[in-house]
């Protein structure tokens, strides 16, 4: 396809020189389908991140202090009461914004750390193969065979529930999927001609790994990152929902659903507000991830 594109670009020159303009196939420019949903998703994520970063500057009530009567429904008038109050009378909006910090930090840090470690291990395993590959695949399989939520529960009960405990557990969950992805991509790149060429001009393993193969891996692996982050936000939410996640009074979205679920019959907004926020965030991350993956992941095409 690239060849056709090149000849097409050269076409006007041959046309002006007057030689027989052979009817070259007209290849229409591949139109990327722009989805409104992807734009909306990016917008939501930007707003969320901005709110989380600027939480201290925003005119919000502190998340731990009651601002009004408990379980008020969402109402206009005061910013703090926009999304209502929780079972203790604390501002839901403030708790959602501060909870965004926890979810985003947990999702990003666990995702990125797992991405770096998993990709490197997968790169080495995929490139060197043999014993190393067999060993790494075995460990990755064992890690995937561990029921994820139960690993998190066990960690939370062994170590004190805290942000760092959750980060440790989530990172452990992320690593094997990145190992697999990176290993598969490495194997497909390592058999390419340019890698053999590099080897023939005497490049060492280090150069081939990091200068030839790694740059090609980054795009498809990073495109997977939003999807992993969505999964991590869900995992953190599940753990907090079971009461073993972020310890109170620090707010987290899953914890808010857990707090509100017993009063759902009388004040449903206690559950629906954090549920919608989680849903929008996970949906947005999945949309962005799908969009990036179809553009950058070679293993999904051909």
């Amino acid at each position, binding site marked *: 396809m690239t060849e056709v594109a090149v000849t097409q670009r050269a076409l006007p020159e041959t046309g002006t020189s007057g030689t027989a303009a052979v009817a070259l196939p007209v290849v229409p420019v591949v139109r990327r389908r722009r989805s409104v949903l992807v734009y909306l998703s990016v917008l939501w994520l930007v707003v969320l991140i901005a709110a989380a970063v600027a939480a201290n500057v925003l005119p919000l009530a502190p998340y731990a202090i009651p601002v009004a009567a408990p379980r008020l429904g969402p109402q206009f008038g005061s910013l703090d009461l926009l999304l209502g109050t929780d079972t203790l009378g604390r501002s839901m909006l403030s708790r959602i914004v501060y909870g965004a910090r926890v979810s985003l930090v947990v999702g990003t840090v666990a995702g990125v750390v797992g991405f770096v470690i998993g990709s490197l291990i997968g790169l080495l395993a995929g490139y060197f193969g043999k014993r190393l590959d067999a060993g790494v695949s075995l460990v990755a399989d064992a890690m995937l065979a561990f029921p994820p939520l*139960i690993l998190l529960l066990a960690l939370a009960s062994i170590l004190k529930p805290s942000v760092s405990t959750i980060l440790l557990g989530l990172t452990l969950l992320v690593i094997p999927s990145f190992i697999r992805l990176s290993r598969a991509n490495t194997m497909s790149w390592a058999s390419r001609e340019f890698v053999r060429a590099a080897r023939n001009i005497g490049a060492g393993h280090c150069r081939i790994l990091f200068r030839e193969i790694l740059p090609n891996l980054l795009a498809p692996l990073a495109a997977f990152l939003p999807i992993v982050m969505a999964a991590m936000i869900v995992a953190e939410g599940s753990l907090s929902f079971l009461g073993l996640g972020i310890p109170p009074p620090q707010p987290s979205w899953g914890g808010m659903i857990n707090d509100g679920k017993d009063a759902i019959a009388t004040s449903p907004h206690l559950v629906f507000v954090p549920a919608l926020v989680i849903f929008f965030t996970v949906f947005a991350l999945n949309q962005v991830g799908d969009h990036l993956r179809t553009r950058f992941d070679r293993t999904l095409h051909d």
Partner: protein
Amino acid sequence: MVLAVTKRVGRSVLVVLLVTVAVVALLGLAPGSVAEVILGENATPDAVAAMNAQLGLDVPLWSQYLSWISDAVQGDLGTSPLTGQSVREAIVERLPVTLQLAAMGLTIALAVALIMGVVSASRPGSALDRGSSAVSSVFLSVPAFIAGPVLIYFFAIQLQWFPVMGWSQISEGLGPNLRGALLPAVAIALTEIASFHRLLRTDLIGTLREDFIASARAKGMPGGYVMFRHALRPSSFSLITVAGINLGRLIGGTVIVETLFGLPGLGQLVASSITSRDVIMVQGIVVFIAVVYVGVNTVVDLSYSVIDPRVRKVAGA
């Protein structure tokens, strides 16, 4: 062929062994022991030490592991010091609930995904296709801990069609049993619908481009017949694989709905055993879940090559 099977099975056994080592190491590192839970907050250090010795918790971790694994291989997963119930009994007692939940969730997911997949694939790119793809993207983003409370609010509290909590055994009548299990099963099914729909849609679109479909259509066969008798079967292959693997995964993945709906299943047992530091129980159940998961994976992998000769050829080459 025999060699490939042996290799695959041997690998699975290794994976399970690694999981057991990890579980024992992980739980062994936990501060506090079950003895403290049994004896209460005010126990003297001597009493705790005596209890630990009695439970065999005072020997080094590796020898605890060796004695546990040699019993486990013979099917004895130990006895919970907390409840006095043998782990195997507890699993046998709880498993039907979890299994029924997982099976119902998967059945619902398969049925819905089948309809959505056929609708999508019969006219890719149409409004109906984009609509059902949007629905499946939405479902993908609804984890069980969101779906559960929302379903409870609408169907159990507002409409009162289903009970909010509780479980009735099948022996007490099929009707109440299904009524209690339906909401949790739907809560599990939502994300599965999404992944099944995507898979089936891609495979069906691929199959519908094949020559034998064109010739079936050219013969004048009705569209529905071509879709269901000719296209669906070769396209449902990877769907069934994934469904099988997910059944194994769901056995360990129903913790959330079981706690939320108060169902006496395996997940709830693990969660409560973890909080009470009942190490023996947790060890047994996690290893059981891992064995089921790895076992299902292995069987699915192997049956794949038995059913489809093309896979076998590639594996042999």
